């Protein structure tokens, strides 16, 4: 008797405490209801960004502060260490920031999970954004979020080293063969000819130039194991084996710009974010940006963008859209371009940009023959694995790497349906 009574008492205690714990904070929890919307001024928004450096952080903070001053709202800018992980956790936790950068890799995952508020229909002049980027950030045929900026890859060359190696402007590589030759000549005294990150986001440009890519244009089938892709990886492998190309981690750098800036690399493949970082971290290093040398199937590069995502669970969606309009206005995009070198995603602003910054010509020109990113739900880990395999490309077998990508991708496409 005593036992059962005390047990019952304990159970009641536990139940009461559990109720108290859950009851007092029922705002969170699992629930599929849509968020109640706030309106009017004096709203407080959070914005989560993955920054490329202090220049970008400062520029975003200044832009949001200007908007906040105009509307009477407040905006808190948070910097993510690993934005994919933080956003994933935040969506599952039901407590996401109001606004955030969405990586094109992750876009489809978030859209499929219903985490994003699709506000494309509330942007009257959406047609001013490049069609490729609008395509990349549409889900189920609806434009979901606006491209923040646009980027392509180019070949950055350290001009001082170029001269020291006895090369002239006439030697700037326009073909794969020339690129390999130049890299060989530039490799000496602790300098590596070509240093790049071991990512498909860099080496994929060569796949495109060989006439291949990871998927077909409609993103409905894998084309990873094509001979064109194999040719591209074999080309990279030859240079890695010869020592005229190296991955960034092999020269103690975090990315291509650092390798270029520290004088460990004579050439690197990077996008236009390079400009801001070089100006800030290595202002004394002279370099020139060239179009990527053409491959067997002509010129090619990759296009990237993030978009300004607004959370489906945000309570400030209207204010969020207003802030996005401000951040993606032509003036503001040119402001960002000035601050940290990104290219506008608006076609109208891009023209102004090209006039203003002739040194970025190679990147601007790249847009015409660029490959947009893969956006298939559940594809992130497939591409992460591909990057992992690319790390050991020097000793690995390109055909095996691509076969694994093909197989993993096919599974992901099957699961996505």
């Amino acid at each position, binding site marked *: 008797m*005593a*036992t059962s*009574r*005390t047990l019952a*008492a*304990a159970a009641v*205690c*536990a139940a009461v*405490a*559990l109720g108290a*714990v859950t009851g007092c904070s029922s705002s969170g929890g*699992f*629930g*599929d209801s849509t968020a109640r919307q706030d309106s009017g001024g004096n709203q407080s928004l959070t914005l989560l960004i993955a920054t490329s450096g202090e220049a970008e952080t400062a520029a975003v903070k200044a832009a949001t502060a200007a908007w906040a001053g105009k509307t009477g709202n407040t905006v808190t800018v948070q910097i993510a260490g690993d934005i*994919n*992980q933080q956003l*994933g*956790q935040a*969506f*599952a936790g039901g407590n996401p920031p109001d606004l955030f950068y969405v990586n094109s890799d992750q876009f489809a*995952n978030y859209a*499929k*999970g*219903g*985490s994003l508020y699709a506000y494309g229909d509330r942007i009257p002049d959406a047609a001013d954004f490049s069609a490729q980027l609008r395509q990349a950030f549409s889900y189920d045929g609806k434009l979901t979020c606006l491209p923040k900026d646009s980027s392509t890859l180019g070949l950055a060359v350290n001009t001082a080293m170029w001269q020291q190696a006895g090369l002239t402007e006439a030697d700037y590589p326009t073909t794969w063969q020339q690129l390999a030759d130049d890299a060989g000549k530039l490799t000496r005294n602790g300098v590596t000819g070509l240093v790049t990150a071991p990512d498909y986001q860099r080496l994929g440009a060569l796949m495109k130039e060989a006439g291949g890519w990871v998927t077909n244009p409609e993103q409905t089938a894998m084309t990873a194991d094509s001979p064109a892709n194999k040719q591209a990886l074999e080309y990279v492998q030859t240079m890695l084996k010869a020592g005229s190309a190296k*991955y960034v*981690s*092999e*020269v*103690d750098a975090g990315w291509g710009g650092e390798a270029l800036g520290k004088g460990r690399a004579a050439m690197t493949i990077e996008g236009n974010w390079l400009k801001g970082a070089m100006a800030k971290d290595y202002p004394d290093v002279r370099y020139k940006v060239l179009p990527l040398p053409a491959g067997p199937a002509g010129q090619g590069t990759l296009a990237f963008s993030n978009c300004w995502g607004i959370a489906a669970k945000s309570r400030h969606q209207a204010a969020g859209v207003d802030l996005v309009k401000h951040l993606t206005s032509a003036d503001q995009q040119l402001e960002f371009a000035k601050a940290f070198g990104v290219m506008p995603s608006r076609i109208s602003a891009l023209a102004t940009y090209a006039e203003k910054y002739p040194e970025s010509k190679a990147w601007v020109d790249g847009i015409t023959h660029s490959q947009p990113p893969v956006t298939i739900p*559940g594809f*992130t*880990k*497939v591409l992460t*694995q591909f990057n*992992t*395999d690319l*790390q*050991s490309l020097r*000793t690995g*077998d390109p055909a*095996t790497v691509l076969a694994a990508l093909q*197989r*993993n991708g096919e*599974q*992901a496409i099957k699961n996505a349906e």
Partner: protein
Amino acid sequence: MPSESTVGAKRRRGLREGAWGWLFAGPMVLVLGLFLVLPIAMALWVSLLHWDGQSNPFSGHADFVGLDNYRRLFAEDGLDRTLFAVSMRNTLYYVLLTVPLQTVLALFLAVLVNQRMLRGRGVLRTVFYFPSITSSIAISTVFLFLFQGSGAVNRMLGWVGVKGPNWFADPRGVVWLVLGRFGVDQPAPTAGGPLGLSWSEWFAGPSVAMCTLILMAVWTTSGTFMLIFLAALQDIPRELEEAAALDGVNRRQLLCNVTLPALRPVLFLVLTLGLISTWQVFDQVYVMGKGAPGNTTLTPAYLSYSAGFDNADYGQGAAIAFVLLGLILLLTTLQRWVLRERGGRPRRGPRSLKGARRAAR
């Protein structure tokens, strides 16, 4: 014959004590129940779902897939199984190298520090133990710095004419690295081993990057185990050693025939504690590269986390966690069984307390 009233009083007292007992243990029951038992039950359910973290997994709409998450780990050829196999391989080598190394080093340090004529024993003990109490995140940061390609460790190796590898960027397995010296190259991964990973990959050994994690684990944990050995060493009855000395044994015989046998139960304890803790490595992996280079520092614990939080496949993540839990519970059972069999759980009598106190002095 006790009267009615005394029986009643006793009963009332027993009741009151029972209530006090549950009241005292109440917070414990509540916290452990709500934040340990309940989560495990919930995760067990989620491991049977396909859940992307967006809806309520405890409603009728949950996408129940049965044992599919487990099947994908063991039976279905694909990326999930490959990653799981790679993480198991990595951790297996991590355990196989870390546990013996840290145990031997801890024992060695304990025997040295236990020398009764040694000057500065206390200082040395402090020095060896200090790494154990610091945060794994802070230590990982320091090791990342030390083991850079042109970092302090490689500078020091350079002084003795060794060209150090680029530690954290080197995915090559040490087995093939060593065999490569003798002209044996890693065969192309064709022949299939267990879990869809080729034999040549299973036998690659830990990667160079993993070796730094192993070094760090040995460096940080040997101090703790040294203390356990030290307490046990000081528990050895002095009469035993004196009797042996009277028999005219030499130093080595004393060590091998008296000291080490007396340490046997503690040795088992240290080995099993090491086995259990090394399978759980997570913090270091998170800080030092999240599986990079080439997935060679991926561990099941980290894979479980990243399957959930990176790839929004919480069912898969929970399934990996339960496989790991099963493995660790198996090891714990083994430990408790072995230590009971040997009668060797270090007895918590006055003796062991004295040892601990002396070790603490």
